[in-house]
């Protein structure tokens, strides 16, 4: 069966603030949805609502046509969410971090971890404690983790922050490969990613 994601009339309130005002979205296998909007327009809130961390006051999220709240565990095994913060421990090395973070979800050998880290250019500093890494390097480690999680649906909050030009290209490349392999990606972005096909766009300011 084809994978699909739908958000129907999502309304989210944060105290007195009406953050999401009836957002509708749809995404099919192999497609990327770029969420654009100014700071504070609710991009992160929308991502957190889609992955089930925040509960919308109104509306629902459908995964393959079923309300995700019916089977949250099943939905979560299919998705990977990367927020602003890299979920990495400063006192562990990149390798150790990934082994624990990814290992909790799916089996991964240290060879898998190393090849994923090589891919993002972390070969020379993969055994250094994360506290000694720059913000961009941490992002790269997070990206390596993302490719290891084996999730079909990616939710990325500003995947390109802190990355150099080469890193930005890496993000586009990783996303393109994921889409080609039949994945789905929702990304909140400031600068639009350069991808040729299958890109949808959702502007939150106008929604």
């Amino acid at each position, binding site marked *: 069966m084809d994978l699909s994601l739908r958000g129907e009339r999502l309304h989210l309130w944060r105290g007195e603030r009406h953050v999401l005002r009836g957002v509708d979205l749809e995404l099919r296998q192999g497609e990327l949805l770029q969420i654009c909007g100014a700071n504070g327009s609710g991009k992160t809130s929308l991502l*957190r609502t889609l*992955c*089930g*961390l*925040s*509960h919308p006051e109104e509306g629902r999220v459908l995964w393959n046509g079923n309300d995700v709240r019916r089977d949250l*565990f*099943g939905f*979560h*095994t299919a*998705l*990977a*969410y990367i*927020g*602003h*913060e*890299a*979920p*990495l*421990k400063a*006192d*562990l090395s990149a390798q*150790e971090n990934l082994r*624990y*973070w990814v*290992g*909790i*979800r*799916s*089996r991964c050998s240290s060879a898998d971890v190393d090849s994923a880290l090589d891919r993002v250019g972390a070969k020379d500093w993969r055994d250094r404690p994360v506290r000694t890494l720059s913000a961009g390097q941490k992002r790269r480690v997070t990206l390596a983790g993302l490719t290891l999680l084996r999730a079909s649906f990616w939710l990325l909050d500003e995947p390109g922050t802190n990355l150099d030009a080469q890193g930005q290209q890496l993000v586009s490349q990783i996303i393109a490969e994921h889409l080609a392999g039949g994945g789905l990606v929702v990304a909140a972005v400031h600068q639009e990613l350069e991808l040729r096909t299958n890109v949808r766009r959702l502007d939150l300011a106008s929604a």
Partner: protein
Amino acid sequence: MRTSALAAARLVLLRDLQLAFRKRSQLVQPLLFFAIVTMLFPLSISPELSRLREVAPGAIWIGALLASLLALEFLFRDDANDGTLEQYALSGQSLTWLLFAKTAAHWLLTGLPLTVIAPIAALSLGVPIGALPGILASIALGTFSLSLLGAIGAALTLGVKRGGVLLTLLTLPLALPVLIFGARATELAIEGASFAAPLYLLAAIAVLGVTLAPLAAAAAVRISLE
């Protein structure tokens, strides 16, 4: 291939142990605190062994209770700040189960060392050697319950900046039964009487904690992530 629940819990536990050994000061602080508190009693009351023996149960238990509370603040806070708890909540594994593993790691890092040094503190307060098995058993069970009860408080105060004091206020009333039965077991052990009854009650609290505390902590963490 998906990780089994048991393997996932093992990873969470190992990760926390490894992290703790990279940051030893957090490990040593509660222990030092316990040692100092119990040392203050001979200084403030009287160095006479017969009088110290009378206050020993209270001294040991108040020290253990405060030292456990001191260590609680770090239980979930770091993981909440760097988004690790979010990843746990979205991992497709049971959050309750993962938090139970975290709490178990916390007990291994604070409760178990306290259990090991409690006999030394007890001996310095003039407690006879025959009372040590009772003290060991009651401190081990008691600190385990305190870790579990504290996990609820730690999870509830995640949303509060500098929630340390609130955490203490929230957890202390819940910890009173542990203090009462623990001190009673220690007292009976020092007198050389049977301490089975209060120990059973401590065990009952621990069982209740194992069954309910991780559920409550997981619910509280989910709310704090929203």
